[in-house]
């Protein structure tokens, strides 16, 4: 079962409340997404830790039901 973009956004938002999230359905098939997550809470964390926080928010779905999520993280300008 693929995941809906809204569901991805809701899960990230629940774990990282200040996150600004932009999700793009890359292939239009509900299975290949790109996400850009911007949060102040990423400040000072290496990229790997920033991505791990987003993956943790998705609670095991990444690499499982969610195969393709091209992830970019950033700190607000």
């Amino acid at each position, binding site marked *: 079962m693929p995941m809906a973009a809204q569901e991805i956004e809701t899960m990230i938002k629940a774990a990282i409340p200040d996150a600004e999230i932009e999700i793009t359905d890359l292939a239009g098939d509900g299975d290949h997404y790109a996400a850009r997550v911007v949060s102040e809470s990423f400040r000072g964390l290496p990229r790997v830790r920033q991505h791990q926080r987003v993956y943790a928010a998705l609670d095991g779905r990444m690499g499982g039901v969610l195969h*393709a999520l091209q992830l970019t993280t950033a700190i607000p300008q």
Partner: protein
Amino acid sequence: MTDDARSRIESTVKGNDVVLFMKGTPLFPQCGFSSRAVAILEHLGVEYASVDVLQDQGIRQGIKEYSDWPTIPQLYVKGEFIGGSDIMMEMYESGELSQLLQDQGVATAH
């Protein structure tokens, strides 16, 4: 993760300066993300070892626990987990990846 998988992962990661755990081989990647990771390393002209996780279920699961990272590909430099293909691409574009390799004393063509 089984002890066997852990010890094989550790010896691979510690025994090679640059290691890419991927789906398929550099010549025949079996996933777009792995293909992208290979392209980056080829562009940098760095020598690397690759492990095809599709040939080994123990390593395929074990590597995710080893790095606490849910997806493949995964890049290691001098025993350190660097990231997956998105982080590799970001670091490649910003020049950080070739800087990191240089800092670690790994030869690149560029």
